[in-house]
């Protein structure tokens, strides 16, 4: 059973899809969705007439108001597997050809699992996949005749089943589009919107994080007083509550960021943003679709890489996979927030904004370089529909936010919990502080980082950060927490590290090796370790050189 969901305002095109599905199989139900908007626009849809003409069950629904959803469920349960509904709507000449071809294909045993008529239509349209399958090439391409006939048929169906005036003149969507995608203003509006979104996440989450922090603090001191052995108390209080707690503090931040992105997506602004900046993507041989993937990367690089499946051009896909780890994911945000907040105070928002800008710049340049280095491919074609503007619904935004933010909580419960325990062990044994295993690792690598001025604590936390970038926060707090006699780990850090070093550390965190899950997905999606190695080495080189540049410039100022 297949449900084709059509758009009530734009039934003509939805029915085109329906006709194509009907060519493939007969057990189809048409759900005409967004009927509330159609009514507002003055359209009246006669579902009985529509169903009679098409020969399939038709349900009128609205996901926004919940209208017709129950009916759809009932119809789905009731309608048994019906036979196919073939519409012989093409011209006699073409129908004859289809019949002849279909008869031929039906005799081929290898093609028995496909519908003969469908194969015939597809091969008349010169469909590459079907041509390969059947080994037959029609002498002439009939695809435009077929498409025109379908649309003519649809017009006839709609003329009796849909009543309403055709809209003329400007509606609200068009008016908004005129300014939002304005030749000059478009880009600036886009930048302002992104700036406000990031500032908003920064400010709203401030007090919420403070609440969580104070809650964890009292939990820590309560457990600290009630647990007996020294090592166990240290494990629970410093290791687990310190490590996982440092992440939990950023939960409000991440959820609010996703909520804001959800509003932008639901309202229909995101495709416009893709449209406005497409020319820029095009100049690095990418498209608006890879822009959407990269945008998801602001949440998590893993989901960004997984979403590249929708990019049809393989080269563009690989470039997108390789560059999207440079997009600053939400896991890096805690590190930025902690360090920017500690060193730059109220200017923290600006610092984070510039880090995001830097991540975009590096992504763009890397796309250019990798394109030059690995491919000289033609860009893929971008065809995108601009949806109508909608008032975002609270329920769907909550759903969106929870869906995206959930991963963060899951990570906090699994990887980060585990990593916190490991880090605690490495920093507690054989002796606490500067004699620990972690310190040894850090010191071993220290000579490499002398130009950047990173201390062994920072280097060790970077090593742990490969597991997941959030871990950097918890390991930094654990290491510096060891020194803290009075006051917090942040205060110790503020004394120990200069602002220029802190900034170059931020840059390094932004750009260095993608986290383990990202590398694993890269392997899965590209199917080769070659790209994984490339990704690791390339990102390390970029991180080191940019961080060095930042430190040198920062030292001069």
């Amino acid at each position, binding site marked *: 059973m297949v449900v084709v969901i059509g758009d009530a*305002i*734009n039934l*003509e*095109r939805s029915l*085109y*899809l329906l006709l*194509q599905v009907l060519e493939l199989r007969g057990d189809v139900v048409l759900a005409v969705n967004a009927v509330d908007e159609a009514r507002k626009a003055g359209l009246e849809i006669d579902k009985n007439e529509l169903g009679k003409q098409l020969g399939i069950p038709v349900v009128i629904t609205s996901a926004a108001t919940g209208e017709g959803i129950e009916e759809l469920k009932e119809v789905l349960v009731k309608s048994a597997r019906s036979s196919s509904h073939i519409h012989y709507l093409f011209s006699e000449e073409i129908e004859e050809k289809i019949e002849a071809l279909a008869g031929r294909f039906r005799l081929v045993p290898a093609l028995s699992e496909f519908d003969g008529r469908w194969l015939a239509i597809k091969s008349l*349209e*010169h*469909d*590459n996949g079907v041509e390969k399958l059947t080994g037959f090439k029609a002498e002439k*391409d009939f*695809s*435009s005749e077929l*498409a*025109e006939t379908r*649309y003519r048929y649809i017009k006839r169906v709609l003329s009796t089943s849909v009543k309403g005036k*055709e*809209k003329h003149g400007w509606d609200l969507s*068009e008016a908004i*589009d*005129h300014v939002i*995608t*304005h*030749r*000059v203003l*478009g*880009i600036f509006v886009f930048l302002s919107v992104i700036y406000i979104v990031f500032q908003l996440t920064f400010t709203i989450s401030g007090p919420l994080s403070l609440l969580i922090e104070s809650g964890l603090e009292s939990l820590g001191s309560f457990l600290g007083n009630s647990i007996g052995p020294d090592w166990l108390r240290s494990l629970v209080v410093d290791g687990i509550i310190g490590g996982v707690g440092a992440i939990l503090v950023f939960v409000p931040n991440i959820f609010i960021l996703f909520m804001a992105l959800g509003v932008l997506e639901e309202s229909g602004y995101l495709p416009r943003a893709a*449209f*406005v900046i*497409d*020319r*820029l993507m*095009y100049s690095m041989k990418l498209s*608006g679709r890879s822009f959407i993937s990269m945008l998801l990367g602001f949440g998590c690089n893993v989901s960004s890489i997984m979403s590249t499946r929708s990019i049809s051009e393989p080269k563009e896909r690989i470039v997108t996979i390789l560059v999207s780890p440079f997009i600053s994911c939400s896991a890096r945000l805690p590190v930025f927030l902690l360090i920017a907040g500690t060193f730059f105070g109220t200017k923290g928002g600006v610092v984070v904004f510039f880090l995001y800008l830097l991540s975009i710049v590096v992504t763009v340049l890397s796309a250019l370089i990798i394109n030059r280095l690995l491919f000289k491919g033609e*860009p893929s*074609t*971008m*065809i*995108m*529909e*601009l949806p109508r503007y909608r008032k975002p619904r609270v329920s769907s935004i909550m759903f969106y936010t929870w869906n995206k933010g959930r991963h963060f909580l899951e990570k906090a419960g699994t990887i980060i919990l585990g990593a916190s325990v490991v880090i605690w062990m490495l920093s507690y044994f054989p002796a606490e502080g500067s004699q620990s295993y972690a310190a040894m690792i850090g010191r071993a690598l220290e000579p490499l980082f002398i130009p950047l001025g990173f201390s062994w604590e920072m280097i060790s936390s970077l090593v742990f950060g490969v597991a997941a970038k959030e871990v950097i926060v918890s390991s930094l707090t654990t290491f510096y927490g060891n020194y803290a006699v009075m006051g917090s780990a942040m205060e110790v850090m503020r004394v120990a590290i200069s602002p220029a070093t802190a900034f170059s550390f931020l840059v390094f965190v932004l750009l260095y090796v993608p986290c383990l899950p990202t590398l694993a997905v890269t392997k899965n999606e590209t199917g080769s370790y070659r790209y994984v190695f490339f990704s690791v080495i390339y990102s390390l080189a970029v991180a080191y050189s940019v961080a060095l540049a930042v430190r040198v410039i920062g030292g001069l100022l």
Partner: protein
Amino acid sequence: MVVPLSRMCEGEKGKISRLELPVEVRERLCGLGFVNGEEVELVKIAPFGDPKVFRIKGTNVTLRNDIAMWILVETSSIPLSSAQPGEYLVSLINGGWGLKERMRQYSIQEGATVKVVENSIRRIEVEVHGKTLFLSRGQAFRVIVRER
């Protein structure tokens, strides 16, 4: 006149006459309504001139120039430079602010009526509001008119 979709001006309409594109792309475009004889309007050009938004069958679809240049449309508009003597309406002036301003001084602006008196090889003699003036071929090429 038949022009590629990418050469249309903002606000211009036309009927699709041919798609010269590979099958996969054409199939997607067919699904969106780009079939022969369908009316299409160029709604909007992006900040850097590419991509463009087209309205087809009541929805807005963005296409890049590298696709739009292979879709041919029949527009009722022609450049003034190839207009035979007769009366025309100015559809739009395909040029920068300077050209538009100059044309405005001749009272040639969008929606104005222009009468072509003579179309010779070197210049075009037109009559606007009872005044006769001569336009160079270059200028006339950028003034797009449609028949009344």
